């Protein structure tokens, strides 16, 4: 088994002067990236193998250097999204217990104000001129990186990804989507998420060039990056595909027509969006996948034929998917179970052990298969809401808003939305004799929640639908 670092180092030998990474005006060759990574690894050599180092950075060259430098030093990279609230960051840090946090000039003040006691530095402080480093032997089950996802109660749970997980998933991405050394890949996705990180791994493994963008906020910038770099692939969430269609309806085909691949992920994609892009791509394909952070890229779907635009595809070789339902008929909806080398062995600190039984992860997603084995997603078992790929537990939002004076109780549900897949709607019961307004609730949410957790709609309600035991029936509000 090759680790991602070994794959990368092989490509340093094969393509030393080739650009591995382009970010704005910075063009970094394989050889130069290797030097930077080694330098960063050396400066970490006072820490022991397996130490946890948190990365709190936006997409940048420093992100890639820090991430690979940590792995190269035999340590675990804990990836913190920069859009998290201070409370969520503290929860993650207390749970992950890192020895060091790497950040940037623009973010270091935020992280320094967080109540967690460890050394906090910016990437450039870790670039040194020494040349001797410890030589770590990495084992398959050593942890490569740690990402947190929403637990069923809204408390974050750690997902430790081993080098074997990364290797298996990267091979699947490459094989299923034909990534190769001549690819030039546009990536506006955050590297703190599994989707973006998987694209980085694939690009490094095959010896191609990654054009990393800060984010997907400016869709014209994405289109111009494709043209400027003669890109061959683009990876974006469905929301961005929809935005490009709406914002640049008359010109987008001029920019993306020559791509060989557009890769998106498993939030709902409007059928018309798939059809539009398929028409515009001259020789290219549009594809999606289904997976969790805990079971990355469990299926792949290439939309190369009519009639299955709503499917997320089939599992690649080595991954099994079962539908657990009362009837045992996989054509009927039930919970999706996944088994394979892409599935984590356990959660961080063995939390939520009951989610993985005999190697099968119980996803909480509901789905069904068609007669040819293609998987379709039908919803969730619990209150998890998926807003353009950002997953939020309803309880997490409810807990924050419930303490607001004037709110007696709140129930949050996901509503279907063409642009975002789902959006959040909050049903609020006001306290007696209190005239709190929707604007006041929204202002409170904007101040206390991450932007993707703020409700799009608020409806005041006299009482919630309840069953005979008085329990709120969330599904009747959906």
């Amino acid at each position: 088994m090759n680790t991602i670092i070994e794959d990368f180092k092989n490509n340093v030998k094969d393509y030393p002067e080739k650009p591995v990474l382009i970010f704005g005006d910075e063009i970094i060759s394989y050889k130069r990236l290797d030097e930077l990574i080694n330098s960063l690894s050396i400066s970490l050599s006072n820490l022991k193998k397996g130490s946890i180092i948190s990365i709190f950075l936006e997409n940048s060259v420093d992100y890639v250097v820090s991430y690979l430098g940590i792995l190269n030093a035999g340590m675990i990279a804990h990836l913190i999204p920069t859009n998290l609230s201070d409370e969520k960051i503290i929860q993650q840090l207390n749970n992950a217990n890192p020895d060091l946090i790497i950040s940037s000039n623009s973010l270091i003040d935020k992280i320094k104000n967080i109540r967690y006691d460890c050394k906090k530095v910016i990437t450039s402080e870790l670039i040194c001129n020494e040349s001797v480093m410890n030589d770590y032997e990495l084992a398959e089950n050593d942890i490569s990186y740690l990402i947190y996802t929403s637990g069923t109660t809204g408390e974050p749970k750690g997902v430790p990804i081993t080098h074997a997980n990364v290797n298996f998933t990267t091979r699947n991405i490459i094989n299923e989507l034909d990534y190769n050394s001549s690819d030039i890949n546009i990536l506006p996705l955050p590297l703190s998420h599994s989707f973006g990180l998987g694209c980085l791994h694939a690009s490094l493994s095959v010896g191609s060039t990654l054009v990393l963008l800060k984010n997907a906020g400016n869709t014209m910038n994405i289109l111009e990056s494709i043209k400027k770099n003669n890109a061959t692939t683009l990876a974006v969430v469905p929301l961005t595909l929809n935005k490009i269609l709406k914002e640049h309806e008359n010109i987008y085909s001029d920019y993306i027509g020559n791509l060989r691949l557009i890769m998106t992920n498993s939030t709902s994609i409007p059928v018309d969006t798939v059809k539009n892009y398929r028409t515009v791509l001259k020789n290219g394909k549009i594809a999606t996948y289904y997976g969790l952070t805990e079971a990355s890229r469990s299926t792949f779907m290439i939309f190369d034929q009519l009639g299955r635009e709503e499917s997320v595809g089939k599992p690649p070789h080595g991954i099994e998917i079962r539908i657990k339902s009362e009837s045992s008929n996989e054509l009927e909806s039930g919970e999706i179970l996944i088994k394979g080398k892409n599935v984590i062995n356990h959660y961080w600190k063995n939390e939520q052990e009951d989610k993985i039984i005999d190697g099968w992860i119980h996803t909480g997603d509901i789905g069904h298969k068609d007669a040819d084995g293609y998987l379709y997603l039908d919803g969730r078992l619990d209150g998890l809401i998926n807003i353009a790929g950002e997953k939020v537990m309803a309880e997490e939002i409810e807990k924050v808003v419930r303490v607001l004076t004037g709110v007696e109780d709140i129930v949050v549900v996901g509503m279907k939305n063409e642009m975002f897949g789902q959006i959040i709607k909050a049903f609020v019961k006001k306290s007696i004799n209190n005239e709190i307004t929707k604007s006041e609730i929204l202002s409170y949410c904007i101040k206390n929640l991450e932007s993707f957790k703020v409700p799009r709609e608020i409806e005041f309600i006299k009482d919630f639908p309840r069953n005979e035991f008085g329990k709120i029936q969330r599904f009747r509000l959906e």
Partner: protein
Amino acid sequence: MSSNTNTEIKEIFFQIFPDSNESNFDWKKKQNEYENWDSFVQLNLITMLEEKFDISISDDDSINIQSAEDALNFVMSNK
């Protein structure tokens, strides 16, 4: 009304972009010049404008709101 609307829109921007304040606020500053104005923040902004001014903003109109000035113009012509 215009002056009140101006103030209310500014207050919405101060809430959504905590780094902005009276001294650095610029009506013409564009979406891509803000550090964190992504699709989710855009959604928050549209939701706040709708609630505050009791208006409805379609997806197509939402795309055209790319500065505080755009928000003001939209509100003034739809209120």
